[in-house]
């Protein structure tokens, strides 16, 4: 039976997030936390493989204690086990320190496939998944839009801006999932009850994770965010009301003026 690890991040629902214009930091107060959408697609892909072939699905998250909620959600959707990597020592991590820490945690679990999302909606780096594959020394297939299990391999359709690539990869491997991969299932009411009343979220703190001090937390992070700022709001634009043909001519003329066409 296959062993699948799914990495999940709890993120603020960016539909409701704003930046503080003065400090440039996220205003997280009162913003609901959700499971990162790409990660949810990875979880759904794992659960579908479990439905079809049988598999043990283990969800792993790194974050503060509140991240317990996304792991319970993963359990309520059908994951078998959940692990929360949580310690102050891991705080302030950039993508390098994050991927080092989570990869070390994942290395303690059996796996044939490791799923991560392509990227998290609060950071949008798309770096943690591929970096983890490097740390674990396994092949990485990013941007998965379709996945099939064939024997000891996966056939993965990768999505690019203007093309697709179909690759065959031997397990064990790491796949980064796109939301286009599937439509995640809902939790079930009974699944929610069992997630809280029968299943456990195992918490791994600093001593439980076999990773070097130089690669964790703020100190193990070679990059720093210097500044964040919201996009400048553009002007209202120009409103013209003409008939369809005249509108098309007008727009074409404007585009020509600006050398767009």
């Amino acid at each position: 039976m296959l062993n699948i690890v799914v990495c999940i991040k709890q993120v603020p629902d960016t539909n409701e997030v704003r930046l503080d214009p003065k400090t440039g930091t996220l205003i997280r107060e009162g913003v609901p936390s959700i499971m990162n959408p790409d990660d949810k697609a990875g979880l759904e892909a794992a659960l579908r493989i479990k439905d079809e072939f049988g598999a043990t699905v283990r969800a792993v998250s790194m974050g503060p204690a509140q991240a317990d909620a996304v792991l319970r959600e993963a359990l309520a959707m059908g994951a078998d086990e959940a692990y929360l990597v949580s310690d102050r020592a891991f705080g302030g991590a950039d993508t390098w320190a994050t991927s080092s820490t989570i990869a070390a945690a994942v290395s303690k679990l059996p796996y044939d496939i490791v799923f991560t999302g392509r990227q998290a909606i609060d950071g949008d780096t798309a770096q943690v998944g591929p970096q983890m594959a490097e740390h674990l020394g396994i092949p990485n297939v990013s941007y998965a839009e379709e996945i099939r299990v064939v024997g000891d391999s996966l056939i993965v359709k990768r999505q690019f801006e203007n093309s697709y690539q179909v690759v065959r990869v031997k397990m064990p491997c790491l796949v980064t999932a796109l939301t286009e991969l599937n439509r995640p299932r809902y939790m079930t009411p009974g699944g929610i009850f069992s997630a809280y009343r029968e299943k456990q979220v195992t918490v791994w703190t600093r001593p439980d994770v076999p990773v070097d001090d130089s690669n964790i937390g703020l100190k193990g992070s070679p990059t720093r965010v210097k500044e964040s700022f919201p996009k400048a709001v553009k002007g209202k634009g120009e409103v013209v009301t003409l008939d369809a043909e005249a509108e098309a001519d007008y727009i074409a003329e404007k585009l020509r003026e600006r050398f767009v066409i």
Partner: protein
Amino acid sequence: MDFKFSSEHQMARTLFSEFAENEVKPYAAEVDETEEFPRGTIAKLQKNGFMGIPIPREFGGQGCDSLTYVLCVEEISKRCATTGVIISAHTSLCCDPIYKYGTADQREFFLKPLASGEKLGAFALTEPGAGTDAGGVATRAVLDGEEYIINGSKIFITNGKEADIYIIFALTDPSKGTKGMSAFIVEKGTPGFTFGTKEKKMGIRGSSTYELIFRDCRIPRTNMLGAEGKGFSIAMGTLDGGRIGIAAQALGIAEGALENTIAYVKQRKQFSRPLSAFQNTQFAIADMAAKVEAAKLLVYKAAYAKDTQKRYSVEAAMAKLFAAETAMEVTTKCVQLHGGYGYTREYAVERMMRDAKITEIYEGTSEVQRMVISGNLLN
């Protein structure tokens, strides 16, 4: 006293709300307009475990509690009261009594497929001559060897024609009045069991409301639910639970109307100001919000009572009475705040006002709830 939901109840509410927003709300107006039973939505509810929420897992259910079930009916009814009542009638009026009064075989053969979502259930007590006066049931069940022969008809049956399994009430000994009434489980397709007219209703128009007709309908003797002569008390006990479901439906309707109206009064302008800037609007919104909150507490308390107490008739009656009358009052005021637009089908409050009315009538009218409450205080 702690008014905080547990983490599982909070997460369940999030689930129901998300599901209702994505899978129920988009069809609510169409279901009302076409009066079509929302089969596609019900299939999704069945697949996702929403049709057996309070039933233990060993009988095909989700193993949650009444509060979780009530949150489901509430969140669904916020967007579509038709879908809400389908869940409520199935769960409270069909799954629940088989779980409570059924034999091991009945739980295995009937409850499991109902609670796991393979089959849909219904409950049939009302007859042309037996509404609030449920003792007026005239349908007969006569024992013939190992079978009962049922003759009679039932009206206003929710999930009629769509359901697979029906709980019906018939007299096994007419000389004993209500003590001669027994409950039976009847499957769709049994010879002699047919459907009469479909009701054309003011609200909850997508719920299929039919007349059931029994002509020499033979069912196995083992399909009697509970003991002979216990039908009336089974019906009354079942309705206590059903009332909590309807109270949750009414609560959902009121909340849905209020949410829609709050959004509307903020954007609708008259005399160069949004309606929300007028004190008349502000006070109306405040009154409605306070009543909705009170209804909510009564409904949740009744659900809690069902899980923790042997008897909960009074809690159920209070919750249904207050939530139903709140739904009617709130939806009426919401239509008023919408003005002329509120009277058109373009706005959901019009449907919600029509849907609200039935909550004051079915599964015990508001007058019956008052009888239950005062009867308990004055005897």
